[in-house]
C-alpha cells in the first residue's frame, strides 16, 4: 500500500515527508526530479514514474506535487484518488492549500495524515470524521488552548466511524436548520474554425450545504431524471431507490459535500450558450498581423452571460499586440505570449469585441500554428442541460428546514479553434 508521501514545491524542494511504513530515503525523489526536468511544464510530469525499487505516483495541485511512494502492486487510481483526497482535506482544514499554510500547520498536517492512513491503508478520509479526531485550527481555539491547556485532538472515538452512516456525526444541533443545493454545470466544448461544434459535453454536479439537526433523511426528486444516465453518487445515496424510482434518497453528511456528479454525453444535443467570431491572420510579407474577435450570446434561454474571460496562447512569433477592446480590460504578456481579455457581461445589443494588430518578428516566416481561444463564462439561474429539481422532502425529524436550490452554468474546457 502507500509507503510514504513527499510534498514538493515547484522549485523542487521537499518540504514535508511522511512515512507509514519504514522510512524511505528522500533520495527516491531524484527520479521524480529527473522526470520533472524532462517535462517542460509542471502539468506535464507523468503521474506514474517507475524507479528501480519503488513507484512514484504524483498529483499536481495548488503548485505542489504530492508524491506517493509505493513498493508493491497497488492500484494506481487508488493512490491518486487518495492523494486528491489529501489535498481536499487540507483545503477543508486550512481554507487554502499552499506551501506556507502547510508549513504553518505542520503538526496538524502530520496528525491528519497519520489519521488518514494506517500502514498505507486508508483509515479515516471523511472530513466529518477527521474533524472530530483532529480539530481544525482556528484563532479562537489556539487562544483557548493556550490558556486552558486543552488540545486539538479529540479523545473520543468518532461516533460516525462505525455506524451505518459513517459519513455523518451524531448529535448535530443547529438553531437554524437549512439545506442548500447548488446545481452547477460545466460545458466542455471544442468549436472548430467555422463555428460548428466538434464535441460538447456537460459535467454537472450537485453540491450541497446541509445544516440540519439530528438524523434527517432527505429525498430529492427531479422533473426530468431521464437526463441523468451517467451518474456518480456520494456514498450516502441509496442506489436501489435511484435504480427503481429515480429519486435521490439519503441521510446527508453534515456540512458541505458533493451529493452527485453527472455527465451528459456528447450524444445528447448540448446547447452552446456563446459564440466567438474571430479573424486572426498573419501575412507572409508583412510583420504585422490582424486580430479581431467578437463574443456573442447564442442559446442562453434569455439569461445573461457574465464573467466572460477570453484567453489565448499566441504563437511564439508574436512580439506584441496593440488591441482596443469595446469593453473590459485586456493584457498581453510578451514573455508567455498569453493574451487575456476580461470582458465581463455580454450585452446582446452591443456585442463586445477586441480589435487591433499583432507585431511579429521581422523577417521570420508566419507562425505554423493557429492560436486556440479559451473561454470562461457564467450563467446564473440556468442549468444548460435543462435539469430541474422537483422537490426536496425531509423525514425522520420534526422541524421544518429552510430549503434552497440554485442553478448555475459555467464554461469548463471551452475552446474555440481558429
Amino acid at each position, binding site marked *: 500500500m502507500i509507503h510514504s508521501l513527499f510534498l514538493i514545491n515547484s522549485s523542487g524542494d521537499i518540504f514535508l515527508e511522511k512515512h*507509514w511504513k519504514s522510512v524511505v530515503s528522500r533520495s527516491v525523489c531524484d527520479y521524480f526530479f529527473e522526470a520533472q526536468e524532462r517535462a517542460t511544464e509542471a502539468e506535464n510530469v507523468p503521474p506514474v514514474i517507475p524507479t528501480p525499487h519503488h513507484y512514484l505516483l504524483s498529483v499536481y495541485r495548488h503548485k505542489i506535487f504530492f508524491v506517493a511512494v509505493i513498493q508493491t502492486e497497488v492500484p494506481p*487510481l487508488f493512490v*491518486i484518488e487518495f492523494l486528491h483526497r489529501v489535498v481536499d482535506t487540507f483545503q477543508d482544514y486550512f481554507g487554502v492549500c499552499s506551501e506556507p499554510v502547510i508549513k504553518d500547520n505542520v503538526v496538524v498536517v502530520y496528525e491528519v495524515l497519520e489519521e488518514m492512513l*494506517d500502514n498505507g491503508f486508508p483509515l479515516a*478520509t471523511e472530513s466529518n470524521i477527521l474533524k472530530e479526531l483532529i480539530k481544525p485550527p482556528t484563532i479562537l481555539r489556539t487562544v483557548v488552548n493556550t490558556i486552558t*491547556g486543552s488540545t486539538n485532538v479529540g479523545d473520543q472515538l468518532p461516533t460516525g466511524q462505525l455506524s451505518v452512516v459513517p459519513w455523518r456525526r451524531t448529535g448535530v444541533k443547529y438553531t437554524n436548520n437549512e439545506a442548500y443545493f447548488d446545481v452547477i454545470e460545466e460545458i466542455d466544448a471544442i468549436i472548430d474554425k467555422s463555428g460548428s461544434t466538434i464535441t460538447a459535453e456537460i*459535467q454537472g454536479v450537485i453540491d450541497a450545504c446541509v445544516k440540519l439537526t439530528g438524523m434527517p433523511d432527505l429525498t430529492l426528486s427531479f422533473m426530468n431524471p431521464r437526463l441523468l444516465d451517467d*451518474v456518480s*453518487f456520494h456514498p450516502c445515496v441509496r442506489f436501489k431507490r435511484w435504480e427503481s424510482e429515480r429519486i435521490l434518497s439519503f441521510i446527508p453528511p453534515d456540512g458541505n459535500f458533493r451529493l452527485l*456528479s453527472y455527465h451528459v454525453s456528447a450524444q445528447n444535443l448540448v446547447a452552446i450558450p456563446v459564440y466567438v467570431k474571430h479573424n486572426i491572420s498573419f501575412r507572409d510579407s508583412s510583420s504585422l498581423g490582424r486580430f479581431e474577435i467578437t463574443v456573442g450570446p447564442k442559446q442562453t434561454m434569455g439569461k445573461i452571460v457574465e464573467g466572460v474571460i477570453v484567453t489565448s496562447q499566441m504563437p511564439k512569433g508574436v512580439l506584441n499586440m496593440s488591441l482596443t477592446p469595446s469593453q473590459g480590460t485586456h493584457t498581453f504578456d510578451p514573455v508567455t505570449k498569453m493574451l487575456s481579455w476580461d470582458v465581463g457581461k455580454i450585452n446582446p445589443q452591443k456585442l463586445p469585441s477586441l480589435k487591433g494588430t499583432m507585431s511579429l518578428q521581422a523577417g521570420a516566416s508566419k507562425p505554423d500554428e493557429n492560436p486556440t481561444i479559451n473561454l470562461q463564462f457564467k450563467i446564473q439561474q440556468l442549468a444548460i442541460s435543462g435539469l430541474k429539481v422537483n422537490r426536496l422532502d425531509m423525514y425522520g425529524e420534526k422541524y421544518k428546514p429552510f430549503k434552497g436550490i440554485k442553478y448555475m452554468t459555467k464554461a469548463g474546457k471551452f475552446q474555440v479553434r481558429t
Partner: protein
Amino acid sequence: MTDSKYFTTTKKGEIFELKAELNSDKKEKKKEAVKKVIASMTVGKDVSALFPDVVNCMQTDNLELKKLVYLYLMNYAKSQPDMAIMAVNTFVKDCEDPNPLIRALAVRTMGCIRVDKITEYLCEPLRKCLKDEDPYVRKTAAVCVAKLHDINAQLVEDQGFLDTLKDLISDSNPMVVANAVAALSEIAESHPSSNLLDLNPQSINKLLTALNECTEWGQIFILDCLANYTPKDDREAQSICERVTPRLSHANSAVVLSAVKVLMKFMEMLSKDLDYYGTLLKKLAPPLVTLLSAEPELQYVALRNINLIVQKRPEILKHEMKVFFVKYNDPIYVKLEKLDIMIRLASQANIAQVLAELKEYATEVDVDFVRKAVRAIGRCAIKVEQSAERCVSTLLDLIQTKVNYVVQEAIVVIKDIFRKYPNKYESVIATLCENLDSLDEPEARAAMIWIVGEYAERIDNADELLESFLEGFHDESTQVQLQLLTAIVKLFLKKPTETQELVQQVLSLATQDSDNPDLRDRGYIYWRLLSTDPVAAKEVVLAEKPLISEETDLIEPTLLDELICYIGTLASVYHKPPSAFVEGGRGVVHKSLPPRTASNESTESPETAPAGAPSGEQPDVIPSQGDLLGDLLNLDLGPPVSGPPLATSSVQMGAVDLLGGGLDSLIGAPNFVTPPAATAPANLGAPMGSGLSDLFDLTSGVGALSGSYVAPKAIWLPAMKAKGLEILGTFTRQVGSISMDLQLTNKALQVMTDFAIQFNRNSFGLAPAAPLQVHAPLSPNQTVELSLPLSTVGSVMKMEPLNNLQVAVKNNIDVFYFSTLYPLHILFVEDGKMDRQVFLATWKDIPNENEAQFQIRDCPLNAEAVSSRLQSSNIFTVAKRTVEGQDMLYQSLKLTNGIWVLAELRIQPGNPSFTVSCP
C-alpha cells in the same frame, strides 16, 4: 501563532534547547517541545538524539501529546531498538484502556515499530484486540497483522494470526471485513502459493454483502479480491456481476475501475447471446467516459486501461469517439494516450471526423504530439481502407506546410501506406522527392530511400537521387546505410545499364569500408548473388512482398487476456504482466480469464475432469495404480471417486520394479516376439489405468461400436509458452492405424509457416508416418485441424512414465517442445484375441508376483455391456463364466510390440463394483 514558530532556531543549538524543554515540568511546555521535534522530523531533520527525552513524555493523559510521542516513536524506534523497549509497558497498558480509541491507537502504533524485541510483546495484546468487542479496535488489529507479517512472517504463522484474520472475513461489521480482506491480500502478495484467500460461494456472498456497506477504500479491496475468484458457472458469474454493477456509479474512480475489472473478467464466462451480456456492455460505457472528466492524473490511468478494454471489447466504446478528442491544454501524457485510443476506435463510420481532428492536431505546438498525430493519420489509412485516399491527401497537405518534423513523419507513414496498398498512390512520389533535402532524421531518410528503390522504374532520376545519398555514406546511420544498399541493388536490377558503376560503388563501400557486420554481410550476399546468378538475384531482391498487416501495435491476445485480469493495477498502466517488472518476481501468479461455459455443461468444469486424462503437463509422479484403476470404470455419472479405492495386497512395490526391469529388457530386444503372458507389466497399470478410464468413460452414443475411444482434445502447448502457437491434440486409433489429431491455432500477430514435427524416442517406438502438412501459412487467429498418421517403427527408449511422448514442433518463428501422455489403448492391436487354450495355459504360467488386483467401483454395467465396450477398443473377451453369482470375464489384449496382457474381471450383479485381476 502558527506552527512555523517550531522551525525557528536559537544560537545555543536546537537539540540542546529541546532537551531542556522536553524535561520541563510544565505540561504545556513539554507539548510544545514535542511539536517542535515533530516539525523538525517532517522536514527530514535528524532528531533521533532526543529519543529518551521524548519517550519520557509518553506516560500522559493528554491524548494529543500521546499521539505526538507515538508519531515520533514510529519514525525513530528502529534506530534506537534498546530504547524502544522502554515504551513497551505503556503500550501494553494502553491496550487495556477502557477507551477504544486508545486501545486501537496503542495496537496500531506498536505494529509500526519495526523492532523484533517489541513484536514479541505485541502478540498478546494483538490477540486480544483481534477479538475486541469494539469493531474499531478489531479493524485496526486486522491491519496490524499485516504489519507484523511484514516484520516477522514466521511469527504471524506460528501464533495463528492468519486463521484469526480469516475468521474476520465473517465479521458482522463491514469495515472489519474490508480491512481483513486488505490485510490478507497484502500478505498473500508476498506468499503467492499460500491459499490465504480461499474463496468459495459462501465467502463470496459475505464479501458482496460487505461491499455495499463498507467505505470506498474497503470496496476497492473487496472488488480486487473478488476479481481473483473464478465462478463455477455462468449463472454465478452473472449474479456476482449484478451485485457489482452498482459500484460503477461510485464517485471514487478507483472503485469504478476495480468494478470494471471484475465485470470484464466475469463477462468472459457469459454467453454472448444472453440479454444480460448486452445490458452489461451498455452499462460499462458511461462510467468509463466519466473517468475522463476527472483530474488529469486519473484520466491518464483510466486511458491506459481503456486502451486495453478497447482492444478486448471494442464494442463498448465504439460510439464514444468524441470524448477522446484532445483539448489543447490537456497534459501531454493525456494527449498521447487519447490519440492512441482514437486510432483504435477509428472505423469507416467515424473516419472523417477522426481525420479532421488529426489534421488539426498536426498544427499544434508540442512536437511529440504532432509527430504522433501525423503517424496516426498513416495508421488510419492502413486500418480503414476506404479512408486511405483521404489520408494520403491529408498527408500531402501536411507536407506542403514544410514544417520539418511534420514532413519527415509524413514520409515515414507514406512508406507504410505504399506497403499496404502497392501501386495505388505512387503519383505522390514526385511531391515527396521535392522534400528530399530537408530530411535529416534517419528514419525519414531510410523511408525515402526505400521508396526511391522500390519505385526506381518510375522515378526518372532515381540514380541521381540515390547517388546524392551515397556521398556521405559513412556518416549515415546503419538503418540508412542498409536501406541505401538495398535500394541501389534494386535500382540496378531494374535499370542495369546506367547504374553499374553506382552499384559497384555501394557494394565496395558496404563490404570494404564498413565495420558493421550486418552491412558487410548483406553487401557480400548481394555481390555474390549478382555475380553468380542475376536472375536469381532478381527473384530474391525484387520478390513480391507480403502486405503489412492492419494494426501493428496491438497487444498479443494472450497477454491482453492476462492484462485484462490486471485492470486498474500498475501492470495495466505499463501494459506488461507483473512478472515483467515486479521486484524479484515475488508474488507473481499468472492470471487468466475464466473460460466461457455454455449453460448446459455448467456442471463439468475443467478442474473436475478425470485426473488421468492426457494433459499437456507431464505428471511428476506415477499415480498409484489403485487410484487410476479406480477411475477406470468410473463412468461420467458422478464426480470422480476422491479417495483411492481398495488397492489389494497383491500390489507390491517390489513387483513393480521387477516388472519395470523386465519390460525394459523386453523392449530392448525386439526379436523376442511371443513372450509369455507373464510379462503383463504391473507397471503398465498406470498409463493403462488412464486409458481404461477413458474407455469406460464412453457414453452410449459416442462411437461405442464404431471405433476406439477418443479423448477430447487437450491443450498440449499453450500459446504463452510458444510465442503464440497453441496446439490442442489427442490420439486416435481407427482400423489398425494410429493417428494424432492436432489443432493448431495462431494466437500471435504474425503469420506462421514452415511447420514440422518430430518425436523423441519413446517406449513404443511411435513416430510420425508422414510429415506435418500445413498447406497454407497460418495467419493470426486462424486455426487449422489436421491428422498426423503415426507408425510404431521408430526407435525405442523406455520413458518415465511409460506412455510419455516428447514432441518438438518447429515453425518459422522457433522450435517448441512439449510432452504429452498418450493413452495406451491406441496401441492395442486388432488381433489381440487369444485362443482359449493358450490363455488358460499362459494364465497358469504367470508367476504370482506378476499379478496385480484392482477394484473398480460404481460401475453399473453388466457383463455383456462391458465386454462389447471393451471390444470396441480391442480388448477381447476370451471366456466368460459365472461363479457364485458373479460374472467372470477373461480378457486379453496385445500391444503393438507384441506383449500380451491378460485380465480377469469379476462382476457382481447388483453391486456396481468390479474386481480386476491383472496378472
